[in-house]
């Protein structure tokens, strides 16, 4: 990968980190000097809001997660990735203003209100942690605050920095799909067995770990593949280490479907039976979603009776069907998470 540093951020601690590790970089004045490719990383000025509520779609239930945008873009090239439609660039843009990032995280602290936040929304939280060690910057900050829980969400096995840190208040999570899907649709990401092994290592190091079965993709034989994946997961990771598990089926706004069709690796994923859902996104027909979610949920529950499992961006009626209740809107929903009750 090629690293470019905006001239205005040369004093950033992240530049010192690059220099200390002997990483080569060139200095640029303008972002337009850098090719718009995934191989290009730009350390840049950024003055946007760093922490903000997850831009959830209307009507479907949202868990009130806060995203911390320290990086925009991802070195992995997943076929179904929403960033293709959401970001206007393919290159990876890293915020150099550590002070502002720390301030933004501190601003999330409210004595009587716990919050969950993470860096995995606009990038992979750990894929570039060996170059830009945000885990080392953010974790100590979070560990000082009892009301914040921070998630590093990844498809990588880049956990080395984490193993030297105190795991308090930090959850490391992995997106999981059967290896057949990883091979087809998750270009550059770690093998799923490696991800599970990394989760095991983090659990052994004292971290709470999370898993995101999202997006679950429908194909002939998906049940058996997901069941095998879950078997492998539960055989390696102790339930006590699990902070939460999310499950959700593949969904995509029309702009993403267009992007996916423009790739040569979408075969299979767009062959489902889609409807335009209430939020305008293409989703599997409700009956199909229900079947898929139930399959995954019961397969997990069969092994793990206590782990907190939730649906990401699903309709309240789906919650009622699977769990027998409606989780409610953001803050109400959030309180279902372990250790997230207000005032605690």
């Amino acid at each position: 990968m090629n690293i470019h540093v905006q001239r205005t951020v040369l004093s950033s601690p992240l530049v010192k980190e690059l220099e200390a590790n002997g990483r080569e970089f060139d200095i640029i004045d303008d972002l337009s000097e850098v090719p718009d490719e995934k191989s290009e990383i730009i350390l840049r000025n950024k003055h946007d809001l760093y922490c903000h509520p997850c831009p959830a779609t209307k009507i479907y239930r949202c868990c009130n997660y806060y995203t911390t945008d320290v990086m925009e873009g991802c070195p992995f090239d997943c076929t179904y990735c929403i960033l293709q439609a959401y970001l206007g660039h393919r290159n990876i843009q890293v915020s150099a203003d550590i002070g502002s990032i720390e301030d933004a995280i501190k601003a999330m602290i409210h004595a009587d209100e716990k919050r969950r936040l993470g860096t995995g929304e606009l990038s992979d939280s750990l894929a570039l942690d060996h170059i830009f060690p945000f885990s080392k910057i953010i974790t100590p900050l979070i560990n000082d605050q009892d009301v914040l829980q921070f998630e590093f969400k990844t498809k990588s096995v880049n956990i080395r920095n984490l193993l030297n840190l105190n795991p308090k208040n930090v959850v490391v999570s992995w997106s999981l799909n059967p290896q057949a899907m990883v091979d087809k649709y998750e270009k550059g990401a770690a093998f799923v067995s490696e991800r599970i092994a990394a989760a095991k290592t983090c659990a052994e190091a004292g971290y709470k770990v999370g898993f995101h079965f999202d997006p679950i993709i429908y194909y002939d034989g998906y049940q058996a593949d997901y069941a095998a994946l879950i078997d492998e997961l539960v055989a390696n990771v102790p339930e006590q280490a699990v902070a939460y598990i999310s499950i959700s089926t593949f969904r995509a706004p029309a702009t993403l479907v267009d992007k996916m069709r423009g790739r040569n690796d979408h075969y299979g994923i767009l062959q489902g039976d889609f409807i335009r859902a209430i939020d305008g996104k293409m989703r599997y027909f409700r009956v199909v979603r229900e079947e898929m979610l139930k399959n995954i949920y019961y397969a997990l529950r069969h092994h793990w009776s206590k782990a907190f499992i939730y649906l990401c961006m699903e309709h309240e009626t789906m919650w009622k069907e699977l769990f027998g209740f409606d989780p409610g809107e953001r803050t109400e929903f959030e309180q279902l998470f372990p250790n997230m009750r207000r005032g605690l």
Partner: protein
Amino acid sequence: MPEQVDLALCWRNYSREKGSGEQRLPLVANIGDFCYQLMIGGKNVSAAIVIRAISVSDAMKASIEFAQPDSISFPEWVRIYAIAADNRIEFSWLPLSNIIKSDTKTYIRLLRSASAWPQKILTYLETHSMPWKVINLISLLHDTHQQYIADYIAKINPTVQQFKQFVETVTDFADKISAATYDEENFKLLTDRRLPAHKDVDELVDSLRLPLVNVRSADNFETTALNFSFTVNSSDEYYKVLQTLTERKSVAEKIYEILRQKRL
């Protein structure tokens, strides 16, 4: 200057009948030492506007400006590109930035790709305005699938909407389509979404039929909301509809019974 002769031939070859028989695009002809810009829409050479051009590229540029770039269709740009390529003329001077939404590099890639498409597709696109994203999808397909689309055009003569959906479906199922010849039955078989939802939807849609009243799911059965709509031209028709709705209350009950059974 042989290039100029080639250019004139290309443009002449492009000439075609459209609708009332008019020719849309200007022609560039090489007569004597000059390139001539011929009037749009006129077959009669005597109606020509004459532009002196000192080079082939100048003649092309004059032609394009005369035709107005935003009125030139995609297939027409394909031909212009081919002429430029044949004459080793840099394409960058063409006034593309005003008419394209994608970047020039992408557009030129599209034109290069399209110059090898089956003629049937280009002919279809001349008379059917198509979104760029559909044209882009065609460019990304394998030759066999482009031929498959051409064959579909020949057999079906689709509307724009049909064509758009067809191209998207061929794109989605390209890994399952190996033939270059379109066969309706076979296509349906290949692209049948084999999820259990279809049967449910069909059953529900069947159950929603009411005389005079259009009933449909408000949100693809995501919730139990149904839209009942009707059109009337008189108070008599209005009362007829009301009567139907009242008499067929059992249909609504049946619909909701099915929704319950389907856990919708």
